């Protein structure tokens, strides 16, 4: 078995391209999809106020992370809104604002609320300072203005906001959805192509040479499977590490837990790959079957879009039979929903069961074909 693993390692070092390509693709796709999902709506604004004051107002407006405000000329704002390219525009004045809309939409109301909130706060501070100025003079007013500014940066109270939700409530975290979905989908290719080498070795006689040697058959299978598992697992772990440590993606302090949860998923994919290699007769069939299986599994299992938004009972029923569903359940369960290890035992057991069944079937089919 060590001999088999050493040869595989040598081959990997000589040809790491598939591994690298799939790793890069996973990262790129996850980033692309999550960047599309997090795209904010741009609200055009115009103002007669000086640049510094407008910047200050825009900074306050963007603190809510709901919209992105962009200063333009009045005509441009009116054109964008008029042509329906922007849902709303805003004219920023010293103590007032004006919302420009072509028709009322949920977003236009939200823009209005956001701007209103910022102006209300600003006017509140201004009113306090004005009153102090009127009653206690200029220096006291300056003192109060300074204290107010300091209080903004260093508030007296820390307000902690907590959301409560029922058991059935779903959370859609598009960033984690795209990262988990892409990685769980692409790793199928890395693993399947490594398992596929068994078929190639059988075709070109290397397998026969090994059968005739003192190496036992279980060692041959185990060597190949350990290698396929290790490359798949290392790839997923590496990609998650890139997101976590390089791109600072928040895994809700569950990064190491996520790495443990990957084990049953990778194992199940190795087993399904063996099953596919078992049922196909040649390279062409494998190349035809693999994308069919992997894409179907990704679609049904919620790698492309969250299963939470799927309402078809038939599709939801089918999703119960693919490992991607349980892989996504595990990862989202841990990171997005904050489930504990015991809460995740069910998807883990299903994945282990799939691993045992498909591996058994795959090896059995391969051996029967030989005889």
């Amino acid at each position: 078995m060590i001999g088999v693993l050493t040869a595989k390692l040598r081959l990997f070092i000589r040809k790491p391209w598939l591994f690298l390509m799939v790793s890069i693709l996973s990262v790129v796709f996850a980033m692309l999809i999550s960047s599309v999902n997090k795209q904010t709506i741009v609200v055009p604004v115009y103002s007669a106020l000086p640049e510094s004051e407008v910047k200050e107002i825009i900074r306050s407006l963007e603190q809510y992370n709901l919209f992105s405000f962009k200063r333009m000329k009045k005509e441009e704002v009116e054109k964008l809104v008029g042509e329906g390219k922007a849902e709303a525009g805003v004219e920023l004045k010293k103590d007032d604002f004006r919302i420009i809309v072509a028709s009322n939409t949920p977003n236009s109301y939200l823009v209005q609320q956001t701007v209103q909130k910022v102006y209300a706060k600003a006017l509140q501070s201004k009113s306090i300072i004005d009153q102090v100025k009127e009653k206690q003079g200029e220096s006291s007013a300056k003192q109060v203005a300074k204290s107010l500014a300091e209080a903004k940066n260093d508030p007296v109270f820390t307000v902690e906001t907590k959301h409560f939700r029922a058991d059935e409530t779903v959370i859609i975290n598009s960033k984690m959805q795209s990262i988990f979905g892409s990685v769980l989908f692409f790793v199928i290719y890395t693993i399947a192509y490594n398992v596929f080498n068994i078929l190639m070795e059988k075709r070109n006689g290397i397998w026969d040479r090994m059968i005739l040697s003192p190496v036992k058959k279980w060692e041959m299978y185990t060597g190949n499977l350990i290698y396929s598992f290790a490359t798949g697992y290392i790839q997923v772990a590496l990609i998650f590490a890139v997101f976590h440590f390089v791109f600072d993606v928040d895994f809700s302090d569950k990064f190491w837990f996520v790495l443990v949860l990957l084990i049953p998923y990778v194992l199940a994919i190795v087993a399904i790959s063996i099953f596919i290699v078992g049922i196909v007769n040649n390279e062409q069939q494998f190349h035809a079957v693999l994308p069919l299986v992997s894409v179907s599994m990704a679609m049904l299992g919620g790698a492309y879009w969250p299963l939470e938004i799927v309402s078809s009972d038939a599709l939801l029923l089918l999703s119960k039979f693919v490992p991607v569903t349980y892989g996504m359940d595990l990862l989202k369960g841990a990171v997005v929903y904050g489930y504990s290890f015991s809460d995740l035992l069910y998807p883990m057991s299903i994945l282990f069961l799939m691993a045992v069944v498909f591996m058994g079937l795959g090896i059995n089919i391969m051996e029967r074909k030989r005889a």
Partner: protein
Amino acid sequence: MLEAVEITKRFKQTHAVNGVNLFLERGEIIGLLGPNGAGKSTTISIISTLIPPTSGDVRLNNESVIKRPEKLRKILGVVPQEIALYPDLSARENLLFFGKIYRLSGSQLKQKVEEVLEMIGLTDRQHDLVKNFSGGMKRRLNIGAALLHEPELIIMDEPTVGIDPQSRNYILETVKRLNKEKKMTVLYTSHYMEEVEFLCNRIYIMDKGNILAAGTKEEIKNILSAENTIQITVERVNDSFIQALRDHPVVNRVTVQDRVITVLTPKEANAFSILFKIAEETNTMLTSIEIKTPTLEDVFLHLTGRALRN
């Protein structure tokens, strides 16, 4: 030493091997000759315990190896028809891998790898990747990988397919040397009768899953001792000439390949005058006519009515 007793192999409705009997004595080179699809590869896969027979037995020193193949596998080296090597590893790395699976290690493994590289003439190219090798070099390394554990018996399945004459000669000489110097018993399958004639002490001729003839070269050629093989070259193939030959009572068999017509007639018949007479009657212009010493090819033709490489 090793014998196959009435082995048969059926794949669904196909009878790939039909009651084949075959034996090898220690130190012999045995040839298994037959065209593509004759059942040679299936036969040697059964003999080497890679696939089980549908019926029959394979015995090593009178002990069945079908259920307990370990003893045979220990002394057996197999050179498959395919290039069973890792193309992305070097020649040396391939040999190290195959040595390791035969439980060789350390200095013993290194020494065996050096020896084999020397024997197959690839010492200078040992660090090159196999995918960059010529067909002949790949074939030599394919043989080398089966020699690392010094097998007593080596089975070679068409080891010279698709290579240049120089590499073929090198391989044939290597097989002879292995047999002579290392006393290796060889079972050599081929559809090149000249290779089998050059190498083998005894020959089995196989077609459609059956052994058609067996014996030494001379014994097999004697099958044709009662017949003459006459090769006629004509200017233009004339159907009436061929038909007249086929209809003539002294002509046993007629085969046509391009402008060359091969005719088998009984030794005692006055074949030349008969052939000239038929040619004259059918207005056929003969370019040459000769009586050939029978070859294994002729024997195969006689036994099957087909040429070996058709």
